């Protein structure tokens, strides 16, 4: 059996404890928290995101020392952009997902590079595809796409197929 079994804190307990901690140290940071498919998820206000991440990383109990993933998302109404962090505490095997949303016309958020150097390229990728400007990032430029590109291709306003084509109608089955 896995050696993590006896260390496991119930997900709900973890969720409550982190919410409590964040509410105590940065009041108003947690907008919503839930468990989605076995993952504690926190919606953090964009102004408090860096503060909240710092607390989660440095708190001796939670100690989220490992940034598993950082990526962007666009909200369903296409008016907001979001950044999603997956944090991991390896020894205790806690995993949480942090989400923060902000206006698409003002996509600015503090960088997490100072907390996890590994966020560097992940943030560049998010900038590349969504145009999220990470304030304080050491080298925020495109990474996978060409530098000359002037759009942010993963935004929903840029459809995959050429919309001027009339020979191919995907109204029925296309998105």
């Amino acid at each position: 059996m896995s050696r993590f079994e006896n260390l496991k804190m119930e997900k709900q307990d973890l969720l409550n404890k982190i919410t409590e901690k964040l509410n105590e140290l940065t009041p108003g940071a947690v907008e919503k928290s839930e468990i989605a498919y076995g993952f504690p998820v926190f919606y953090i206000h964009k102004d408090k995101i860096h503060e909240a991440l710092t607390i989660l990383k440095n708190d001796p109990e939670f100690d989220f020392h490992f940034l598993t993933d950082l990526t962007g998302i666009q909200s369903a109404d296409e008016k907001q952009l979001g950044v999603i962090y997956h944090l991991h505490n390896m020894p205790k095997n806690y995993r949480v997902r942090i989400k923060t949303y902000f206006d698409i016309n003002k996509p600015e958020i503090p960088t997490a590079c100072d907390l996890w150097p590994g966020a560097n390229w992940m943030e560049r990728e998010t900038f590349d595809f969504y145009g999220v400007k990470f304030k304080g990032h050491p080298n925020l430029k495109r990474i996978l796409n060409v530098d000359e590109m002037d759009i942010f291709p993963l935004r929903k306003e840029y459809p995959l197929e050429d919309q001027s084509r009339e020979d191919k109608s995907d109204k029925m089955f296309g998105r």
Partner: protein
Amino acid sequence: MAKKGNKNNKVADTAVVEPVSKKKATVVVENNSEEPEEEKEYSTLNLGPTHPATHGIFQNVLKMDGEIIHEATPTVGYIHRAFEKLGERRPFYQITTLTDRLNYCSSPINNIGWHMTVEKLIGVKVPKRIDYMRVIIMELARISDHLVCNSVIGVDTGAMTGFLYIFQWREKIYDIYESICGARLTTNIGRIGGFEREWSQKTWDLIDAFLRDYPEGLKEFSNLLERNKIFMDRTVNCGPISAKMALEYSFTGPNLRAAGVDYDVRVATPYSSYQDFNFIIPVGTSGDTYDRFMVRQEEMWQSMEIIKQAIKNMPKEGGFHADVPEFYLPPKEEVYNNMEALIYHFKIVMGESDVPVGEVYHCVEGGNGELGYYLVSDGGRTPFRLHFRRPCFIYYQAYPEMIKGSMLSDAIITMSSMNVIAGELDA
């Protein structure tokens, strides 16, 4: 290569041997003596994008001080294929073919990881037998992945023989894939809910033959390299990374374990019944090229143990697919003779099966580390957002730091020992 080396050596001579005479010559520099950096003349070397030694499309602009790398600036994205954007348009079952092309050295792991992500989203529990079959395939894929990586380290250090001998075993693994799914490299193996058909007797025979004969081949390969003085001189202390730095840079997989952190997704968050198996996680100490090589070497032995256990404990019952009619294609005879099967067939092929709204993160231990699938579904026929956590992309960013101050030829084997796969890096 040899030509370049000679040229750089000349530069190195002037730069390293005669700093004293240079200082005498320039009076201005003598005043602020702590800045010899300014004096040095660096040469720029374009390593890649298509350099045979980088095994993939990577460009590194190296600022060289003789043969010593002073600074490296990697450029990636040469084979970016917009998988995440494509994934937002394709029905779930069509995304499997995209995952093939991430880490194409171990595509079955990617395929099965994706199936498991969708299964998690729609809430399917697959029978234990399928879990075990998947474990066999995934461990075979791990062997083929590590085998390519390790033999290529050999090639880059000048030992071609090991590569030529060991590569036939990758062919045997590909034969096994072929007998299961018909494809060899980009496998598209399995389906959401299980496998497309029952494995034939030939498949089992091939697996048995592989397990019987491979240890001998691997042993031969170990004898060639593991305690080889020349190989060790080349790889020990080459491109080391500390555990702290590896964690900061979000390393996972063999590269993290070589640095001494025993993190393995198969143990930390077991998927596909990995909790039933007994295996050892090898860890290194210094995170150098030799440790990475040895960790992969031991993981191949452990993978074989896992496959043996899976075959031995394989449940007889359970069939080859779970009962998910909305996602698993019915047999063809039924499509012709049974209305319900016809409806399901149509719905699956057109990608009209209902999925719940939700977001899932599922991770598997890929050939290179934690391969994560972050899937956001809004209930539509395609994912609303699909993100692949590609271990290569994340740990390649530490590469410039790892090769700083090392020789050019060390940088080459550092890269091959990190097993950077262009397909996975660029998505």
